[in-house]
C-alpha cells in the first residue's frame, strides 16, 4: 500500500510540477501568432461555400442538364432543316422568276435587256431547258398551291394586306411582260396559267392533266404544252382547235384560260372557226 502511494507520488510530484510551471513562463512570439492566425483566416475564406455543401453537385447537375437540353434541341432542329426547308439559295437558283426576269443585266434598263435577249440565238432546246428548270423548281416547291413566280412576288411585298398585294403583283407582271419578247411572254403566260390552275382550287382539272404526265409535278406543264404549243398559238385557228379539244376533254378551266389568252393575242378571234385538229400524240 505504501509502495503504491510512493509510486503515485513519483508520478504526480507537486513540487516538481510547481517548479516546472513557475519556471516555464515562455510565451509564443507575437509574429508566430500573426502568421498562424493569418493562415487560418486565409484557409477559412471560402467557408461560406462549405456551409452549402450541396451547391457544387447541384451546379454540376444543372450544367449537365442544360447541356443535354441544348443538344436535344439542336438534334430536333437539324432533321427539320434537312427535310422540310429548302435553302434559299437553291430556290433562287431554280426560281422561274430568275428565268423570266430580265437576264442578269447588271443594272441595264428594259430595252437594253430586250435587245440583248433578241440578239441571242433562240432555239427550242434553250426554251426546253428553261421549261425544264421551271418544272424542277416547281417540283422542289412545297405543295402550297402557289407557284414560285407568285412566291417571288409575295416575298417582295408585305403580306399584311391581300388586295394591294394582288394589285402590285399584277403591275409587276405587266411591267415584266412588256419588257420580254414573244418567247418570254409565252413562258410567262404558261406560268400564270399554272398558278391560276393551282390557286383556283380546280383540283379536278389538275388531276385530269396528271393522267397524261409521267409525273405528278409535271402534269400541268405537259398538258398545256401539249395542246397549246407555240406552233398552235401562232395561228388563231389552231389555237382555237386546241381550246375546243381541251373543252372536249373536260378541262374547262384550261380551255377558258387559253381562250382568254387567245382573245388577248388575237382580239378578232371570236368569229374564227377552228381548223381540223391534229391527233393527240400518245393516244
Amino acid at each position, binding site marked *: 500500500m505504501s509502495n503504491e502511494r510512493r509510486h503515485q507520488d513519483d508520478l504526480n510530484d507537486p513540487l516538481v510540477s510547481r517548479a516546472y510551471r513557475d519556471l516555464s513562463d515562455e510565451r*509564443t*512570439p507575437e509574429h508566430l*501568432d500573426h502568421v498562424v492566425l493569418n493562415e487560418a483566416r486565409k484557409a477559412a475564406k471560402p467557408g461560406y461555400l462549405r456551409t452549402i455543401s450541396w451547391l457544387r453537385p447541384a451546379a454540376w447537375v444543372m450544367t449537365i442538364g442544360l447541356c443535354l437540353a441544348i443538344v436535344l434541341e439542336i438534334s430536333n432542329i437539324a432533321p427539320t432543316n434537312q427535310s422540310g426547308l429548302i435553302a434559299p439559295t437553291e430556290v433562287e437558283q431554280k426560281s422561274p422568276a430568275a428565268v423570266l426576269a430580265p437576264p442578269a443585266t447588271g443594272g441595264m434598263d428594259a430595252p437594253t435587256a430586250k435587245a440583248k435577249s433578241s440578239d441571242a440565238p433562240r432555239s427550242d432546246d434553250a426554251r426546253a431547258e428553261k421549261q425544264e428548270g421551271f418544272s424542277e423548281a416547281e417540283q422542289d416547291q412545297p405543295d402550297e398551291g402557289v407557284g414560285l413566280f407568285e412566291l417571288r412576288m409575295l416575298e417582295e411585298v408585305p403580306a399584311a394586306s391581300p388586295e394591294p398585294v394582288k394589285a402590285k403583283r399584277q403591275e409587276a407582271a405587266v411591267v415584266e411582260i412588256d419588257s420580254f419578247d414573244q418567247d418570254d411572254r409565252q413562258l410567262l403566260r404558261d406560268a400564270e396559267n399554272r398558278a391560276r390552275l393551282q390557286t383556283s382550287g380546280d383540283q379536278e382539272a389538275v388531276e385530269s392533266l396528271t393522267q397524261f404526265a409521267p409525273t405528278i409535278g409535271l402534269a400541268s406543264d405537259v398538258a398545256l404544252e401539249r395542246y397549246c404549243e407555240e406552233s398552235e398559238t401562232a395561228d388563231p385557228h389552231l389555237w382555237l382547235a386546241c381550246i375546243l379539244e381541251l373543252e372536249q376533254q373536260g378541262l374547262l378551266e384550261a380551255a377558258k384560260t387559253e381562250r382568254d389568252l387567245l382573245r388577248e393575242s388575237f382580239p378578232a378571234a371570236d368569229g374564227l372557226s377552228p381548223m381540223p385538229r391534229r391527233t393527240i400524240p400518245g393516244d
Partner: protein
Amino acid sequence: MTAARTLVPATAVVALSNSVGVAYAPRMELKPQDSALMLRYRDGDVSAFELLYRRHNDALYRYLLRLCRNPAAAEDVFQEVWGKIIKTRDNYRPTAKFTTFLYHVAYNCFIDHVRRNKRHANPVDIEPDSQPDSGEQPDMLTERSLARRRLETALETLPDEQRDVFLLHEEAGLSLDQIASITGCKHETAKSRLRYAVRKLRAAIDEPPEIT
C-alpha cells in the same frame, strides 16, 4: 444571463436538481469544448479557431521549445503543427480529445523535424534575460534563475523518451493512456518513463546550489 448563471452557487444547482428530479449538471460548462470549436472552424468560423489557438498556443510552444531546445526550430515546428491542423480541418472528427489530436500532430512533426535536421545538432540555451521581467527583487530573480537553470539542465539530461512523456504530462495535461497513444508505447512503459523523469527532476530541484 451569463452573470446570473455565474452567481448561482453550485450547491444551489445540485439542490434544485435533486428537488425537481432533473439531472442538472452541477458545474455549468460555459466554455465551448475544443472539439466544438474545431468543428465550428471547419465550418468557416475563424473566431472559433482563434479561441482554440489562444487556449493551446503557449503550452504547445513550450512543449516544442523543450523538445527542440532551439527557439528557431521550435517556431518552425510550431508553425508546421498549426498548418497541419488548419489543412486537415475538413477531415477532423471529434473521436478523441482535441488536445490528444494536437499533441499527436506536434509529436509527429517534431519527429519529422529531427529526421530532417538531425536532432540536437545545435542546442541553444534559453537565456533568462530574454524572459519577461516580473519586477521581483534581484536576489529572488537570481534564485529563480538558478532554479530554472537546474531544471533545464535536468530536463536536458533526461533521456528523450522520459522527457517526452514528462512534457506531455505537464504541458498538455494528458493522461498516461493518451501519452502512450501519442508516443506509441504501452501504458506501463509510459508510466515507468514518467516516474523516472519525475524522480530525476525532483532530485535536481532538491540539490543544493553549487557554491562558486
